[in-house]
């Protein structure tokens, strides 16, 4: 990813972001609200068009035919998006389908897998996230944590090369967060390439291979969790972590 810029009208949401996402590793994006984390993530699968620079996955440019060139056609874009799974903060499950159908739908419609086989794969994917017994439930009959796990299964079942998570736990009650983080840890252990926007510093600290700190559309600091959390060199990063710790300490 090189020199990516994104404008909303006058407002520049991303400022010359250059970043390498190591394959098979977990990269966590942290930073204050409004710093452009979601925007960056959404540029990677081209839900937002970026305005300058380029994003590549395995040497394939995303969204444009060449840097600064024409937009990709609909078919090419869809093909490209197959390789990128995304899990949203609000889950965005389809309410009229059961958990199983939610997962199988993409397999059937995008990959063209026959229904019976798609349902098999979907059932496996759900079993893997610990929902083998909830395949027939509609999202409205699942807790938030369960819903988010279905969303993860839905993305994983498509066998993407890279998974994007946008604050996958911040719409969840604290008790349910654990379920989802557990599934994500498991994915990480299996060597899935993951980019995770998160407010869960504990997760970032324990699971990430790289942590990236953003502020006001700029990439301020990146490094291993140890570098970022133990020795926050940057002043803004230090202030951000300080605030976080204060809110969560139990000391008197």
């Amino acid at each position, binding site marked *: 990813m090189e020199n990516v810029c994104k404008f909303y009208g006058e407002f520049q949401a991303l400022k010359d972001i250059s970043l390498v996402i190591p394959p098979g590793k977990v990269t966590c994006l942290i930073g204050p609200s409004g710093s452009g984390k979601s925007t960056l993530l959404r540029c990677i699968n081209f839900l937002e068009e970026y305005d300058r620079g380029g994003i590549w996955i395995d040497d394939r440019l995303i969204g444009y035919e060449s840097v600064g060139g024409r937009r990709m056609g609909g078919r090419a874009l*869809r093909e490209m998006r197959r390789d*990128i799974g995304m899990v949203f903060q*609000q889950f965005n499950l389809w309410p*009229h389908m059961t958990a199983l159908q939610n997962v199988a739908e*993409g397999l059937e*419609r995008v990959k063209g897998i026959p229904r019976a086989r798609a349902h098999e794969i979907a059932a496996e994917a759900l079993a893997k996230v610990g929902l083998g017994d909830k395949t027939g439930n509609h999202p*409205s*009959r699942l807790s938030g944590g369960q819903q988010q796990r279905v*969303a993860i299964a*839905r993305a994983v079942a498509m066998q993407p090369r890279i998974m994007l998570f946008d604050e996958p736990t911040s719409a969840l009650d604290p008790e349910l967060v654990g379920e989802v983080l557990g599934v994500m840890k498991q994915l990480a252990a299996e060597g899935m390439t993951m980019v995770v926007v998160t407010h869960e510093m504990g997760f970032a600290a324990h699971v990430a291979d790289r942590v990236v700190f953003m502020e006001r559309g700029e990439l301020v600091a990146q490094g291993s969790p140890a570098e970022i959390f133990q020795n926050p060199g940057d002043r803004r990063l230090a202030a951000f972590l300080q605030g976080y710790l204060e809110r969560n300490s139990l000391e008197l």
Partner: protein
Amino acid sequence: MELDLFREYGPALLRGLGVTIFCWIVGTACAMALGFLLALVQRGVSARPVQWILRAYVEFIRGTPFLVQLFVLYYGAPMLGLRLDAMPAGLLGLTIYGSPYFAEIFRAGLNAVPLGQIEAARAMGFAPATILRRIMIPVMLVSALPALVNFSIILTKETVILSMITVPEIMFETQTMMAETFAFAESTLVLALFFWVFVETISRIGRRLERRATHYLLDRS
């Protein structure tokens, strides 16, 4: 109340019922289809002229009485060389008249589909047509069904205006009976009863569809 009346006019009244129901089904289905198409174009094509034309169509058709539209279509259009028979003209009239109302209902319904659900499908590489068919339409129905049923019920009553262009529907037949026999009370009763049963049936079916479309939402506060 003279039951003899129904011996004589019963068959014609029954035929009228059949014609009314037929016109309502075909007219409503076509109007819904056209309305849906209009809503899709309104949503999908952002070119200004197209938007204006659609807006004008909606406001113009919605703003004028069905009676007048039908009259112009049936008695006026031949001046321009378009001569339709009563039944095709009636069905075309119903289609045109209903379409802007349905278009507005569908437009509101589509706008109410949470963007996230569409983005989730887009992010997975769904084709636009698949997103529409598999995600947007089923989700939209939840909020749009009551309004769709409401307007379909209104259309049942607009079908009586087809009597003006000699479509032999229930109003036409009751008018005949009334004119020949002066049996006013009986005619009114027949009409009232028929429409009440007709509308009640439609709203029952509507409620059942509504329950089916929303069953997955019901039991969680």
